[in-house]
């Protein structure tokens, strides 16, 4: 066998790949499931916190700021490990999947709250005053006047963050989630061949590259215009 053939046989072994393809595919499903859950719950919670913050209740706002700062300071892996290995000591035993989901959703919630809040505060006070003086209630002003302008402003930084945090689903491997990397790693140790890892890497690219490209497009489309 030539060197090149040997390389192919090691890293792109057709027999191994065929055998572990179903595992990798089931990993892809778990990754997608996890990613969708994180994005939806994280963004909804982030927006909700930003809206609560706009009510301007001092002690509540301090609490929100603290929570947001906390989850922006802690590495996501530390939060996941703490939930998965720590909480059982308090008689709560979340699965690896739930630990990863909740942890990353909390992180996305915190980052997106900051961005939503920055968007809301960037709308001049005069807009609030004008809307209120026409007889709109606080809630109506927020939903019909402030948010449409604020959200447009937040889209570029939000897309970037969301992609970066969603990639964190791979961290689930550390707490035995059977997502792509987890499936690929166990296949490598079962087959003693790195081909499954190459498949896993390819799966991530297939999954996330379109998202990054779409993100780039969204960024230019919603780029700051004066």
């Amino acid at each position, binding site marked *: 066998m030539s060197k090149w053939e040997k390389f192919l046989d090691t890293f792109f072994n057709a027999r191994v790949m065929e055998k572990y393809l179903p595992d990798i595919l089931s990993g892809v499903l778990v990754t997608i499931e996890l990613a969708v859950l994180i994005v939806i719950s994280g963004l909804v919670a982030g927006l909700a916190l930003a809206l609560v913050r706009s009510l301007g209740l001092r002690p509540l706002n301090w609490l929100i700021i603290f929570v947001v700062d906390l989850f922006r300071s802690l590495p996501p892996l530390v939060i996941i490990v703490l939930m998965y290995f720590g909480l059982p000591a308090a008689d709560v035993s979340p699965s690896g999947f739930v630990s990863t989901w909740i942890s990353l959703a909390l992180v996305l919630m915190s980052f997106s709250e900051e961005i939503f809040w920055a968007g809301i505060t960037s709308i001049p006070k005069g807009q609030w005053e004008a809307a209120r003086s026409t007889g709109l209630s606080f809630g109506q002003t927020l939903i019909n006047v402030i948010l449409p302008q604020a959200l447009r402003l937040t889209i570029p930084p939000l897309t970037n963050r969301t992609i970066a945090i969603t990639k964190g689903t791979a961290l689930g491997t550390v707490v035995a989630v059977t997502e792509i990397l987890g499936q690929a790693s166990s296949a490598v140790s079962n087959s003693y061949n790195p081909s499954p890892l190459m498949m896993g890497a390819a799966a991530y690219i297939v999954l996330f590259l379109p998202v990054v*490209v779409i993100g780039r497009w969204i960024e230019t489309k919603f780029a700051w215009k004066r």
Partner: protein
Amino acid sequence: MEALIQSFFNAEIAAAALPIVLDGLLNTILLSLLVVPLGLLGGLILALLANVRHPLVRWPLMAWVDFFRAFPPLVLLVLLFAGLPFAGLELGGFACVAIAFFLNTGAYYGEILRAGIDSVPVGQVEAARSTGLSGLQAMTYVVLPQAVRNVLPDLMSNTLEVVKLTSLGSVVAVPELLFQARQAQSVTYNPTPIVMAAVVYFLILWPLVRLLSRLENRALAARR
């Protein structure tokens, strides 16, 4: 309540684990001091290449950056750590972390620095060149200082993410903060050391998060 304190804030275990956790903190700091400059170097190379407008440079460069933005850093790290030995190349956790960060965070720093360089008006380069500075001198003394200043909040924000990302080292047995805490936890069967690690991360990074949050609010408001 008593039981919760015993499990999560156990003073006895905290005292025993303290030297181990501090050892991990030292390694996290050393690791950060290695990977942040490495990432910046990678980013600077990419940003300078992005200045070459030739399509043969432009397209591969964009593909490179998008590839590493799409690729989870942990997957890259595991690929290097578990994949390369099959090619007869055993690098060890520390070297794998360094390479993975050079590639991954380099792509992010590169995007930021590129935006910074783009934000400096062309007239500045022309003026610098007309005074007799070479292209390299104009870049080093005129463009880069302003570029860095213009994107400083983004650079700091990315640096925060990089420091947090060093916790991935624990997966490939680099004895940084999280790894050490998990070692201590598995020996004592008590999560107190992990809580300690979390507290340490929070105490170190909180000031930076506060500062960034102020800068970001100001930046978004100014962009309207």
